[in-house]
């Protein structure tokens, strides 16, 4: 289905991202080979200028990645009108083997671009530019990621045929029960919800603790264990949230027990409530993981204060957005229970 307007839009953004990242990687290779900050040569001056270009290109790439993530979801929504058997975007994604991986790569791609920008932002805060080599080495890793992303996208679109019969969200994300292949596995819903809320509580407590220790402890210290836990739990919570939203929360949003679609509530019919839900979740996760990951950078020359300040901001964002997310997500089931479950 490469001739569909949505497919073309996705391919255009993929091509644009390819060129942007290609340019940035060219700079990365040159930096890795001939970066010499102590010199005042013409080559070094040109390289320093080029690092600004690379940062600009990655920033545009990140925006593009976000846009194409949104495009992919909306495209799947539009494909579902064409594909037989698909009533919502889920059906379009599972119409062949590449849909879900393409979506997951796009989603995590946003995070990886974001981390690069965090590295860059911290790097230029230190007069020693201590992260320049690291950030450009990391940039090289984004190349294969983007290639995989584009390959999956193209495979997905090529293999998407209007006459294929696919299944729908009610089947794909069926909860509980004995059917195999459902997302929750054998776990009962109350247990999962308990896990969900206790993980959230643990995250808030950990964040508060880190905020305190970050304020009082000497900036060179860092707390590797606490930070490692915090980052890991953040990631776990992100994935758990996606599952919980899909399987447990979404039927309450639709007020239909069998409708389990993580995409439909982006639609206007449901007041676009999906956008704030996903945005808060993604931003909170990003802030949390960034905070944890940057704790290791505090010891680098000139970075103690910038990193400390950055992490404090991250924790603030995290502690602000996580409750908002929890409130948004909990509102639908609570409302249902309070109204007496009609």
């Amino acid at each position, binding site marked *: 289905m490469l001739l569909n307007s949505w497919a073309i839009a996705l391919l255009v953004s993929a091509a644009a991202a390819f060129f942007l990242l290609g340019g940035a990687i060219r700079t990365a290779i040159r930096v890795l080979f001939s970066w010499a900050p102590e010199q005042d040569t013409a080559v070094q001056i040109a390289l320093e200028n080029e690092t600004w270009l690379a940062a600009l290109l990655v920033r545009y790439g990140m925006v593009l990645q976000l846009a194409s993530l949104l495009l992919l979801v909306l495209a799947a929504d539009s494909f579902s009108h*064409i594909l037989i058997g698909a009533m919502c975007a889920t059906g379009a994604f599972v119409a062949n083997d590449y849909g879900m991986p393409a979506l997951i790569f796009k989603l995590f791609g946003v995070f990886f671009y974001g981390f690069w920008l965090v590295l860059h932002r911290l790097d230029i*805060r230190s007069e020693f530019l201590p992260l320049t080599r690291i950030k450009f080495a990391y940039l090289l890793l984004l190349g294969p990621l983007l290639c995989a992303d584009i390959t999956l996208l193209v495979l997905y679109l090529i293999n998407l045929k209007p006459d294929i019969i696919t299944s729908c969200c009610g089947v794909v994300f069926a909860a509980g029960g004995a059917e195999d292949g459902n997302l929750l596995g054998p776990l009962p819903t109350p247990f999962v919800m308990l896990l969900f809320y206790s993980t959230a509580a643990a995250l808030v407590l950990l964040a508060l603790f880190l905020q305190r220790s970050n304020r009082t402890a000497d900036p060179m210290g860092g707390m590797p264990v606490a930070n490692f836990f915090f980052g890991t739990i953040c990631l776990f919570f992100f994935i758990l949230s996606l599952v919980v939203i899909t399987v447990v929360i979404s039927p309450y949003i639709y007020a239909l027990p069998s409708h389990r679609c993580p995409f439909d509530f982006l639609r206007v019919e449901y007041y676009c409530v999906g956008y704030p839900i996903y945005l808060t979740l993604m931003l909170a996760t990003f802030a949390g993981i960034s905070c944890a990951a940057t704790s290791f950078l505090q010891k680098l020359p000139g970075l103690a204060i910038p990193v400390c300040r950055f992490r404090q901001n991250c924790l603030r964002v995290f502690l602000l957005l996580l409750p908002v997310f929890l409130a948004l997500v909990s509102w639908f089931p609570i409302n249902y229970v309070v109204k007496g479950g009609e």
Partner: protein
Amino acid sequence: MDAPYIGRLLNILDYALSSLRRKLLKNFGVFTVFSVVIFLFSSFQLTSRALTEIARQTLTTAPDITVQQMSAGRQSSIPLAAKEQLAAIFGIKKIDARIWGYYFDESNGANYTVIGMDTMPDHAPGSPWPGLSEGRLPTAGETGKAVISAEMRRQLQLGERKFFSLFRPDLSLASFETVGIFSKDSDLVTADLILMTMGDARNLFAIPDGLATDLLVQVGNPLEIDTITGKIRDKLAGVRVITRAQIQKTYEVVFSWRSGLGTICLLTALVSFVILAWDKASGLSQSELREVGILKILGWQTGDIMLLRFFESATVALFAFLTGWLLAWVHVGYFAGALFRPIFLGWSVLRPDLAMVPPLVFSDVLLVFSISVLPYLCATAVPAWRAAVVRADSVL
């Protein structure tokens, strides 16, 4: 380095706007070309959206289920006896037989669709039908009465006359009187349609008694359509069963495919435009070099200049986007997408004057935006950077 974030953005935006105002003429070219490209893109998208919408509306009057006989993988006539077999299925409200086919008019090279039915779906024979702008439908048993569209009257050059003739397979003439005219709203499917009684259609195509082209099934409860479809398949061997939803999907596939093809053609335009924009933005004139040099020596950072450039390009792009989109809206809504209709409805010589009201859908806006504005902004990244790294000491 820690300037107030919003204040800095506003100030730089302010500067960007004033410098755009100064270079109005220079930016006007880019603005115009870009508006045209976006106008074309969004016209395409809106036309296809509006056509899909019309098809959806028209199809709501179509039968729930259509049953056709297949033989050797092709459609063949279905015996009317099948009607009795189906009548026993619980949940079926009504079954009508229908004869339909294509009639090629050699005098003007057009292909008409002929449908012969004795009762119209959901309507008692002889009663006024919402699909008609004037007149009535032919009733069962009548001969030589037909309903056609206003467009078809023009094609047949009927003028004020009511009668027209069609050739039977043996080249003898069958004469018809127009008793009704289809309303414009359904032009998408009725523009090339001649509706008559079963008997007349049988006569025109020389189809033997006891056979029909397909059976139209009305179902009491729409939720049961899938179940009933299955039952029909079980009862009748070798039939094809088509539901309304499937026909709808077919329309969407056709339209989205066509709009995709159009998009590809327009992409070429966009690419050449992006190259033009790049060309224009990348060459820095002497005065621009001096301006950036002065700004930098006064303490503007590389990032500030890049932001300035971004605001300039983004403003031009946004205005072009709004202009192009509004023009496309007018084009599709008021001029019925006059430029693109031949592409979308190109399979027939008939070109219905459809009244299209494109719905405003966020995803359409995003689609056109991401096909046009995003690539353009990406293309401006390198020129923006090139301008931003002008060295401060260049003005000393």
